[in-house]
């Protein structure tokens, strides 16, 4: 039984040996670590976040009262069709995690700016660009309220 399992594992391993995400163990939408942050946009960058996905839109946000900086992971660039500007005020609800370099990161679930609310993930962190409700309604980018 153990031998058979090893053999099947070897087969599976041979197929998927090439995959590697390379992300931090804490880099997932942790429902236990949801926070709400309000701050101003300091920088807008684009970088890959997950394996085999398009670059993500990342906002560097500075919290108003503490000047703490957060990297806000918004969504793949192709999904987001709003313009951000440096110095704009944004409220973010999302899951917080820290990297080894002690950088504070937030995976955004909901964002409020210019009087609009954009829903990017559901309450468990399921991304709308991966078949969530918005995707099913014709791929509309972000949910406005």
């Amino acid at each position, binding site marked *: 039984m*153990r031998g058979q399992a090893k053999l099947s594992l070897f087969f599976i391993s041979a197929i998927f040996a090439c995959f590697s995400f390379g992300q931090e163990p804490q880099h997932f939408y942790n429902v236990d670590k949801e926070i709400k942050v309000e701050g101003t946009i300091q920088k807008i960058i684009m970088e890959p976040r997950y394996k085999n996905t398009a670059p993500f839109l990342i906002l560097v946000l500075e919290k108003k009262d503490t000047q703490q900086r957060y990297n806000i992971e918004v969504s793949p660039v192709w999904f987001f069709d709003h313009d951000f500007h440096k110095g704009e005020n944004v409220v973010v609800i999302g899951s917080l995690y820290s990297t080894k370099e002690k950088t504070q990161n937030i995976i955004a679930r909901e964002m409020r700016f210019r009087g609009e609310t954009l829903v990017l993930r559901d309450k468990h962190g399921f991304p709308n660009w991966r078949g969530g409700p918005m995707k099913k309604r014709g791929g509309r980018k972000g949910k406005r309220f």
Partner: protein
Amino acid sequence: MIKKNYLLFFYMPLLGIVIIFFVLSNFNRNYIRKKVEHLVKEQLQATAEILKVNISHFLEENNPAREILDRYSQEENIYYIAMIDENKEILGWSSRFDGYLPLSLENIEKENSWIIDSPAGKIFNLFSSFSIGNEKTYYLYLGYSLKDLDAMVSHSRQSFFIIFGFIFVIGIIFFMGLYQLQSHYLEKKREAEEEKKEKERYREISAFTSGVAHEIKNPLNSLSLLFELFQKRVPQELREDVTLGKKEIQKVTGIINQFADSLKPLKLNKEKFLLEDLVLSVLDSLKKEVAPAGVETKYSQNVRVVLNADRALMSQVFINILKNSLEATETGDIQIQANQQRKKVLITVKDTGKGISDEDRKRIFDPFFSRKKKGIGIGLYLTKKIIEAHEGKIDVQSEIEQGTTFFIQMPGG
């Protein structure tokens, strides 16, 4: 009444069937879903056990957790997988949906399995512990796609709606039919009750009228005899008045006899005779009495029609109908046509007379209904009675100034 019947015989049974189907179907679907979920759970737990054994091997060989999980990340039905140490710290994870790992480590205490609904469909979640040789405890968190179950549920829902629609349509047809039958039955019942009441009323009137006629006839007979005596003994100059008086008494006696005859139940003395002979003899006798000069009478038939009926009564029928037609027609013709069709004889009597109004047509067979100056309105009533006694039917169609047609249907032939 109609609303109540609709409620009782259409809406309520239909609604009842639909509700029963809905409830039973829901129970059944829930039961099957629970059973399937249970089976799936058992199967996935067994799969997870194999996975845990394999992961244990890799851990024993000091492979990093992230690399180990990557090996399973592309497995078709695994949506996400994570390895957690005994301090509930995530050692590594992999998810098909960009950071989606719907696990709350704060709320989970021990081994558990549950199913969640996600935008990607139902996901079976398993959180279970395993140990490796150095006695360290790890937890494996696994999200397994239940898309087959979703497909089954969706198919079941589809089937439910198709069957539901089918039952609904069949139910509408069935209960509409039931309602129609019930309405028809009620209508017939109402007609039968009305007919019964009418017969009862007629019987009472008949009894009363027969009694009155009987009581009047005796004094009239005495009066008639008295006038006979007067006629012989009165002076010559008064004899003519007495004769007139005697005739009037005879006229009253005649009317009373007609009344009495119409009230008697009919006794049929059936015999076979040619319809043509009967009609022609009636026409002969009527022509002498009432036929206007400009009116022609024609008799035609498709075969030689033989009737098995009471000849005297049928003669009365044709006298009544043809007399009416002759009296109503000043010029033109009266056509009597007889057709034998299978076991029926259809006779039409068509005149080109002044016609009858719709209002009068509806009452034409009622007793004592007449628009004629002379006549007491029992001729056509008796005609209908005689034909119905032979299990036949009579109807009339008419147009003012166009003429009238009587339709008689007799059995046999």
